[in-house]
């Protein structure tokens, strides 16, 4: 691909920073703020897009693990079957198709959601269910924080590992 995606993003950022932003009068604060935000978004996109498929695959695999852990804990057989079915469908998909991976992720999350919301009625959460979701979250949250580190919103940002490290180590 020539020009490739990186070059095109870099060119847009250069135009925004060197041509458009200096042309905005200081009193147009909203327009200036939005330009800075647009630059921030583009910088994040430039960093993240090469990893976008791996990000979605990692998210999907985490959810499949959670769905598999929850299925034996859910009392309602139809909700347990929906979990098992969503896992089976996701395992059959083409893992290099970004849109298909995203759609499967949504489907598995929906099945998990139904199981968590309705699976135990109004009885207290079981320790097994709580533990499974917390293990899922403990794997996911640190990666997510690193994924968004460059936004500057995270107060621990400077101490977080690079998100690339989560994927490059396989």
């Amino acid at each position, binding site marked *: 691909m020539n020009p490739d995606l990186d070059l095109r993003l870099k060119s847009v950022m250069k135009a925004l920073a060197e041509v458009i932003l200096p042309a905005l009068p200081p009193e147009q604060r909203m327009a200036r703020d939005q330009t800075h*935000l647009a630059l921030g978004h583009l910088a994040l996109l430039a960093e993240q897009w090469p990893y976008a498929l791996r990000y979605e695959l990692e998210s999907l695999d985490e959810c499949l693990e959670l769905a598999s852990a929850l299925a034996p804990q859910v009392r309602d057989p139809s909700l347990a079957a929906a979990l098992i079915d969503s896992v089976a469908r996701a395992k059959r998909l083409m893992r290099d198709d970004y849109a298909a991976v995203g759609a499967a992720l949504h489907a598995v999350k929906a099945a998990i959601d139904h199981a*968590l919301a309705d699976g135990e009625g109004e009885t207290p959460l079981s320790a097994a269910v709580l533990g499974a979701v917390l293990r899922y*979250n403990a794997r*996911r949250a640190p990666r997510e924080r690193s994924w968004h580190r460059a936004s500057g919103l995270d107060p621990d940002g400077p101490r977080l590992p690079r998100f690339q490290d989560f994927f490059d180590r396989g």
Partner: protein
Amino acid sequence: MPPASSDASGAPPRVDPWDRDDLEPRIAHVLARKLARRDLGPYAARSNEQVASQLARLYSVRGCREVRISALARMTGGASKEQFVFTLEHAASAAPERLVLRMDPWMGIVETCRGREAQLLAAYAGVVPVPPLHAVDADGEHLGQPGLVTRFVAGVTAPSDVAAKAVTGVGIRFEHWTAKLAPQFVANLARIHALDWRCCDLSYFDAPAPGTTQAALRQVNWWSRVWRDDVVEREPLVTLVERWLRENAPVCADPVVVHGDYRIGNFMFTEPDGAFSAVLDWELAHLGDFHEDLAWSVQRLFGVPREDGELLISGLLPRDEFFAAYAEAAGVTVDLDIIRYYEILNAWKCIIINNATASRAALRGQSHQDLVLTWMPFGSAVFMDQLGELLREVGR
């Protein structure tokens, strides 16, 4: 339906933790209003001419003659309201007035009520520094959308001599200003909670029953409805935490006005004296448990690390010092178990605001701030990590 009832034995009234429809009526109304606007299509930011014309109509129907709106300019900041500064003159005005309009787009990061905000600004005049209320159009009868006008207040949310990047206030560094600002931050929060709200006109509010779990459960009901209405991608942790919150709601003995967003970026001060000139953004305020505000202020995302690594809550003071100073100022005991409950509720609520409403609004293009709205979810993982830690703590 009465929200809670006591029996003849005088036992504390029981609130059904699974009654998802127990919301304050006005909150239920504004959330339904948001859904009704959903099919209107994308929202285009208003032009200055449109806003000037709508303001002229608002003041004309309020009895002003020869209304003149001038020097109108869009303000920056925030992620939910369109804000404009303008000058008002009319036949009876002694001098031009510099005013600020806060108006709803079709959808923002939160859906709230300008009428509630106006009542609080009136109630707190002279209690804590607030922008003086000038006019309100709670249902958008004259402005086209709900809006609120206040007098312009001088001041800054971030010191002009300290460099830092900040989006909606997150990330402001106060540095040498903290000695002046921290005591005021604590004192004003204590004053907010000390208001005798029963003597004020808060007709847009509906108080939870004292001595029950209704204060907490109404918050759970509010935000779980928002999640169901706005969710873009389901999140197992959010569903799990809702259940936990219902099962573990604490009793609130004596409801107070909870500001709801008391943190870095939501107060202004003047330079160089460092005096608070306004407590801002009352839109999430409600009647509830004072611990909720404390737990909101100490959220990790609103903190700024000091040089030695200690996290300063809202960039001002360490957590333990904040609780101690508040307890002394308010004359109350801070219950750390209740703080933990509200830390969980608040982190859960922030994920809902950032991941559901912000994303839904941007997806439909129904705000003037789509770029900010798609930036806000970047902070949600901080809340997710925090929720994991908190739930592990309560499980020990």
